[in-house]
């Protein structure tokens, strides 16, 4: 899971690109969208969220769900641009890795 940690900020941004979410929902979505592959410690998402908020890529606000107030995170305009940029970078990187691994098949 160490490899995932290096990409955690990008993954969190990508999940938030689909809509605002609180920490618990976010880690759930990460697990769900990776088909259960990303079994991260649940707490690991919070330093990433705080880091991204400090960088101005996400913003937080309050929402009330089932009688409970929760801090919900959403992408900012800068965050949306960052998602597009990271997506492009990842596609070029994975295409290059695929090209190398593919030759052995």
């Amino acid at each position, binding site marked *: 899971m160490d490899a995932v940690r290096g990409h955690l900020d990008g993954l969190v941004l990508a999940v938030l690109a689909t809509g605002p979410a*609180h*920490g*618990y929902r976010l880690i759930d979505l990460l697990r769900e969208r990776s088909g259960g592959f990303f079994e991260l*410690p*649940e*707490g*690991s998402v*919070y*330093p990433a969220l*705080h*880091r991204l908020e*400090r960088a101005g890529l996400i913003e937080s606000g309050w929402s009330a769900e089932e009688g*409970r107030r*929760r*801090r919900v995170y959403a992408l900012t305009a800068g965050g949306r641009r960052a998602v597009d940029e990271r997506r492009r970078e990842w596609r070029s990187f994975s295409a290059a890795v695929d090209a190398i691994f593919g030759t052995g098949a």
Partner: protein
Amino acid sequence: MRDPMRDFLDEMLTVLRVGTGRRRRIAAEVSDHLTDLIEEERHRGARPEEAAERAVARFGDPRALAAEFNADLARHSLGRAAWALTGCVTVAFAAAGLPLNGAPPARPWPSPAVFYAVPELLVQLAIVCGLNALFLTVVAPRLRGAALAGRPAALAGRNLAAATLALIPVAVVAAGNLTGSVPFAERLPLAVLTVGFPLAGCAALRAAGRASWLASPRDDENVLDVIAAVCHASAGRVPYADLVLRTVSSGWRAACRRAPRLMRWLDLRHHPWQAAATVSVAAGIGLKTPDLLIGDLDPLAAVIEAATVYTCFAALGGLLGLRGGRADDRSEPEHAPLVTT
């Protein structure tokens, strides 16, 4: 009765070093999340105590979580302090440059010698340290795509502290001269420095203290290693950078093969003392070039300038991470060296 959630929060908060507001916010978020996890475990059929144990286990190590928050705060503090100090250094440079290029104040405080010597010598040291810190904390992590950690973080802290110490006399002289008959254009940077420096200095010293939170025993990079790593990382990203790097590296290697003795005077990584002598002479010539162009060269001042640069390197080069280690007494870094002899 034991409460795993309370124990988790207590352990995390013991290690957490962030401010009160953020501390409260982190505790509330973690507590909310753990409550959700406990509910989830109970829906799966776990007993209350068992559910709490499982939730805490799923959340991870509380100390590691707190350490990660601390590390992020340390990085943020270092970056912010580096920007603030660079701003102060820029203003100090302007404040030092204005009177040197025009008429001095009617009664320079505390004396004309100090008024000129302090900015001329110490502002230069602060510039080197400030730029070093900005490079390590802001530029290098962005270009390398890796978070600041380990020895570069400690070096950034040391550079910030050194720049702060160098700027203290500059700020004192600036404050002392505010009361004299100084023109407004000169009074403004002096006033900004007098007010801004204590704030930037405090931020820098606090950030330097927090740099230890980013310690990593495996990492022994100095500033020159970071420069090399940044060059290699940029080569893969910036158009033509790869070509430039390869051209420079092959040119350097060819020069080292043909004239190894001469090239030792330029290789800061493997022959720091000889290269420092070259840099000092170059600095002496470079800083006095304007005087040379107007035909008013002061050779003694040029020699003092060169000697000062060399002395500063000898005294502070190791501390600030500007001296390359010997190739045979340290392990090779992950990246290939930029140029080798």
